């Protein structure tokens, strides 16, 4: 497939226009993703990374420009209709799962009626599929399918949320710092799971991260944002030869300021 799965054409969004709080969240953003693209997104706070995701998901409607998903214009489509074809994960593990439902019920919720029409949401057929998927996580969750999800750790919840986001075979996967709230070991594990799922399903993916090293190591392509613009878009050889130092230099040249915020600095020093 060479056709673009996701296409943003000159998308702009301004919050509180005409007031003192006016903020240009997105300025003429154009971006094209094809099947198999795994794009990491970096940028300082307020660069427009989350705004980009919100625009794609329809959390707000954009002021100008066009958004196409799988060739279909979704610019004016309400968020819950887009949600059918977009999987999204947040930083907070609590956001992606229903705590009082069991693991299998949460998965069944996301799976919908793809396993055929059954009277019960959780049935013998999709339970077998869930078990297999959970086993692939290697977290031992396949033996705890009737446990309420609220009883799991943050990392386990996020791993299940990741399954839920991808089980419906979305056209696009959006990961918004989904490992940021986890401890380093768990974060690493969840990132590994992410990579294996994305590589297997070839779902076009955008992943926001504050970990610059991971941004360059994981995925196939990296974009950098600043003040609502995409200021860098690298892949292939160029990306392979990129180092953190060069990236930081490039950033200050492009934006005339420092990319590093405290959190990024902390991540780099830690490594």
């Amino acid at each position, binding site marked *: 497939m060479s056709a673009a799965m996701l296409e943003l054409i000159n998308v702009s969004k301004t919050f509180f226009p005409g007031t003192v709080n006016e903020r240009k969240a997105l300025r003429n953003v154009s971006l094209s993703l094809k099947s198999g693209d795994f794009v990491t997104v970096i940028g300082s706070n307020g660069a427009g990374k989350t705004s980009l995701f919100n625009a794609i*998901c329809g959390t707000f409607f954009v002021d100008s420009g066009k958004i196409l998903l799988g060739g279909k214009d979704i610019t004016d489509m309400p*968020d*819950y*209709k887009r*949600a*059918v074809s977009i999987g*999204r994960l947040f930083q907070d593990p*609590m*956001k*992606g*799962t*229903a*705590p*009082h*439902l069991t693991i299998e*019920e*949460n998965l*069944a*919720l*996301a799976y*919908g*009626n793809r396993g055929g029409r059954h*009277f*019960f*949401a*959780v049935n013998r057929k999709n339970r077998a599929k869930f078990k297999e998927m959970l086993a692939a996580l290697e977290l031992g969750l396949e033996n705890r399918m009737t446990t309420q999800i609220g009883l799991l750790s943050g990392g386990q919840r996020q791993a299940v949320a990741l399954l839920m986001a991808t089980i419906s075979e979305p056209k696009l996967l959006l990961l918004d710092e989904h490992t940021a709230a986890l401890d380093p070991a768990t974060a690493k594990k969840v990132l590994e799971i992410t990579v294996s799922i994305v590589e297997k399903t070839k779902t076009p993916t955008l992943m926001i991260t504050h970990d610059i090293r991971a941004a360059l190591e994981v995925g196939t392509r990296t974009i950098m944002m600043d003040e609502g613009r995409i200021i860098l878009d690298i892949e292939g050889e160029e990306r392979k030869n990129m180092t953190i130092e060069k990236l930081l230099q490039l950033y200050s040249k492009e934006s005339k300021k420092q990319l590093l915020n405290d959190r990024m600095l902390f991540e780099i020093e830690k490594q």
Partner: protein
Amino acid sequence: MSLIILGELQTGMIYALMAAGLYVTFRILDIPDLTVEGSFTLGMTVTVMITSAGYPELALLIAIAAGACAGLVTAFLQTKVKIQPILSGIITMTALYSVNMQIMGGKPNISLYSAGADTIFIKFERLTGLSANNSKLLLISLIVAAVIALLILFFKTRVGLKIRATGDNEEMVRSSSINADLTKCLGFAIGNASVALSGGLLCQYQQYADINYAVGMVVVGLASIIIGEAFFGRRSVTIGFISVVVGSTAYRFIIALALQVKLFDPYWLKFISAVIVVIALSLPVLKTYFQKLFARLKNERGNA
């Protein structure tokens, strides 16, 4: 005495359907629904009119539909007009008072007994040839078991799961492809349908309907839910619905016992119910308070 036990068992199970309806909104959707006082009476008034016209079974079906409509009105006010949940319930409940009076032709109460109308209980007694009390108990048990089983099964289906998820993590549901407004409407319709059926059954059981019968009914329902949870804990919906039946029956027995030993005059009933609910709802706060207190005492003892 055994007659009293039988009577309490019968009414307790009829009220269980009201408590089960409240359980749908209060526990599953996590929204306190005050429509219940209106929809219970709506079930009564609809039933009393259609039963006096000679159609007791149809009366209950219409009562269920009417209750569902009442629930839909409240859900509409909440989701589309964006009125606060509690206020939407109060608005519907208040409006239903006039509707209920209109249904009963402006009379505050109507007796089925004086009209000599057949109820499903009288018909069933004739059919089975059992004694009045036994046939009543059997019929009520059958109806309650059927309704509770239906509710349990429904909340395991795909649609039922969506309703449960809406009450559990609305933000997640809103960012998924589920229409949260629709699932809320469904939950309210089902809950109030069950409440209205309870009102309709009670009307035929007692052979009268009264416009003020359901005053304080929400608190009675909450007390039943909470007493049930005291026995079973808060677990899956299946156990939840069963515990509501147990809780509602236990509530009747507790009240009957208290009245038997003349602990208080009957008009204190609502006060007692309110106290039960307050105690139960304050348990989490009390628990953390005492945990802190014990931890401090332990520390002080350790330091001394």
